[in-house]
């Protein structure tokens, strides 16, 4: 490395020209050279984490986001049909050319076993499409020209204009229909965007429910967590440690155990109802339904997410010197006024951090509502899980998930604008 002693080149007019080190290299260059090594070392140390994040976090998110618009099944399994339909006006059932293309696609798809995917894909949009296509595929080798007649004989639904419109609409490599479905919209038979029929409208309601229940849970967690955090921060160390263990205890027990414990406590024949009956607060046949509904979800999730509120609050409160409260009192403020005007505003970074943490965790929560939420306590994530595992409509699951992710990012950005992320303290 270059010598540290520095000479100054002074220009002819006596002005300071450029700083160089003793061996004549410009100072900036040698600083950059010296820093490069440090940067390389720093990068080397963080590289494993970087790769891990890319593979386990960024790529899955990207993959999910792309699944929500991807539609390769149809152009890949039915290339001939797609090509012919390109020139179709969509006004009446297409002619023999389209039917021939369809028949060939089905025959080939049946051989290569790719037609099923297209059938499933179309079935997401219109129930019955899968059985129509797969029914025809099973009898693919019997299809002879003229194909129109042959296919109509197999299933006269092929004469339905809407079937052809649907195939044409979903023939691109990308589709918006998952997103439309995720917000309870769909294409009408004529291709306009319209609301889903009422009996199929569910996701907007679920989004709204997820938002207000998460907000409520966040509010409850703040209400319950604030005094605990305050106690933690002000109690003498010995008692504070014990309390801290109690706060952290939930982290050391399984989520499932904790959730099922709530079932024991809250169910109609459960501890709480028994106690209220025993105390005479309610009659034996007036037992309250406190689980398998929204109450169950709210109670259990509030308890489970409470530590995520308490810990950031605690870390902020720990840093607030008691002399602020003393100063406020010495200036003439009654203790409640001092608390409200001097203490509480200083805990805002903690409230923000805890609030955002709990809210974001809550809108993505899944196990607890699934176990104790019944029907009315299900959140949007439960439907993401349903589409991932039961209906296998990954595209829709991805669309809902992406909307949720966008919502979280939006929330984060808003928070940043209003409070400032650097004001947030997580610990």
């Amino acid at each position, binding site marked *: 490395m270059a010598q540290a002693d520095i000479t100054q080149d002074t220009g002819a007019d006596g002005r300071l020209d450029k700083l160089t080190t003793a061996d004549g290299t410009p100072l900036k260059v040698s600083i950059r050279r010296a820093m490069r090594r440090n940067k390389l070392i720093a990068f080397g140390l963080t590289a494993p984490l970087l790769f891990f994040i890319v593979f386990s976090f960024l790529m899955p998110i990207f993959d999910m986001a792309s699944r929500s618009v991807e539609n390769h099944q149809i152009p890949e399994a039915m290339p001939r049909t797609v090509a012919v339909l390109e020139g179709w006006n969509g006004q009446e059932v297409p002619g023999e050319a389209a039917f021939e293309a369809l028949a060939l696609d089905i025959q080939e798809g049946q051989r290569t076993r790719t037609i099923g995917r297209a059938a499933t894909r179309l079935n997401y949009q219109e129930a019955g499409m899968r059985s129509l296509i797969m029914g025809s595929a099973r009898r693919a080798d019997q299809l002879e020209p003229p194909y129109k007649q042959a296919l109509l004989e197999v299933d006269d639904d092929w004469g339905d204009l809407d079937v052809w419109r649907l195939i044409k609409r979903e023939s691109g490599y990308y589709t918006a229909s998952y997103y439309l479905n995720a917000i309870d919209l769909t294409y009408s038979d004529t291709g306009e965007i319209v609301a889903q029929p009422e009996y199929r409208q569910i996701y907007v309601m679920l989004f709204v429910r997820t938002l207000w229940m998460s907000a409520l849970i966040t509010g409850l967690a703040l209400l319950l967590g604030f005094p605990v955090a305050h106690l933690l921060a002000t109690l003498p160390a010995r008692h504070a440690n014990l309390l801290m263990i109690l706060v952290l205890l939930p982290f050391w027990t399984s989520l499932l155990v904790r959730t099922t414990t709530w079932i024991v406590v809250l169910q109609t024949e459960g501890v709480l109802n028994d106690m209220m009956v025993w105390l005479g607060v309610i009659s034996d046949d007036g037992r309250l339904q406190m689980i398998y509904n929204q109450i169950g979800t709210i109670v259990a999730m509030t308890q489970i997410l409470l530590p995520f509120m308490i810990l950031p609050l605690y870390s902020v409160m720990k840093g607030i010197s008691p002399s602020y409260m003393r*100063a406020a009192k010495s200036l*003439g403020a009654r203790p409640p006024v001092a608390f409200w005007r001097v203490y509480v505003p200083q805990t805002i970074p903690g409230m923000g951090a805890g609030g955002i943490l709990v809210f974001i965790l809550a809108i993505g929560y899944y196990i607890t509502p699934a176990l104790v939420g019944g029907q009315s306590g299900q959140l949007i994530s439960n439907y993401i899980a349903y589409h991932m595992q039961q209906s296998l409509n990954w595209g829709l699951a991805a669309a809902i998930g992406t909307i949720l992710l966008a919502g979280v990012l939006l929330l984060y950005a808003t928070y940043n604008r209003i409070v400032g992320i650097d004001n947030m303290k997580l610990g």
Partner: protein
Amino acid sequence: MSQDNIVEFNHVQKSYDGETLVVKDLNLHVARGEFLTLLGPSGSGKTTVLMMLAGFEVPTHGEILLNGTPINAVPPHKRGIGMVFQNYALFPHMTVAENLRFPLDVRKISRADAEKKVQRALDMVRLGQFGNRRPGQLSGGQQQRVAVARALVFDPDLVLMDEPLGALDKNLREEMQLEIKHIHEQLGVSVVYVTHDQSEALTMSNRIAVFDDGVIQQLAAPDMLYEEPDNAFVAYFIGENNRLHGIVKQVNGKSCEVELENNGGTVKALPVNVAGEGQRTTLSLRPERVEVNPTNGIDNSFDARVEELIYLGDHIRTRVRVCGNDEFVIKIPNAHGHARINRGDTVKVGWALQDCRALDA
């Protein structure tokens, strides 16, 4: 109970743990308009006294009067005492002006009046332009001034300051000492000030209470404290001081003879705080009161061997070995014709009887 005392501590005791007394039988009167400093080493109970006065700690025993009325049961916010904290305790989420308006707001003072008072207070500490800043955007000295302004803005009769300058560097501290002193003189408020810095106490105070071990060792004006310390602790704590240990041989009225240990010889001294003949005593002698080559007839005169000379500009600090003590310090003023001495020389040193105070052992 005189109305001229704004604060009176009567037999106040304080224990935190029920085992040791942090403040032992404190009797202290603060006169109206006075600047009184509590000075003492760390852990001597200064902050505790201040906290009891502010109402954040409860006396274990005894009574505190404010303006003649007992305030043991009055909560802090009703005492109307201004307070400056060591770390300033400016509210970080409020601007400087909002900080100053806080005590006025809680007193329900009208907006217009409050604005006026805030501006006046800011001007007083020469921060008129800084009202819109956050405390975090001010330097340490500026924050300190805001803290002072905030403690004064609601016109309290009494202001308490707990080591308010502790966090500042030396130059700024000296500047602020004078500034606070001038504000005190201007406004005529009473100030109880806590510090462990003796020069700060000497600079600012009307009277200083020297604390040690929960007891006031001496309460006096700065010059009295320096020149006439009552006991060895005060002499040692305030200013530099040569200490000689010995046994009182003879006391006759205004003078006594003390035989020094280590065969140091016999010294004539002023008996201030001696237990009696035959008892141990500590002699206290300020370095600047020792003469080199003294005039004939001085009360005490000894041969001293020069061990070390330190040039300090305005004076030369000279360490000599005399009376069996080689930590004996003399300050030779750097004036025309001052004694020229070298290391290893033997010189005559002497001091007057009145300057050599015989104190407790």
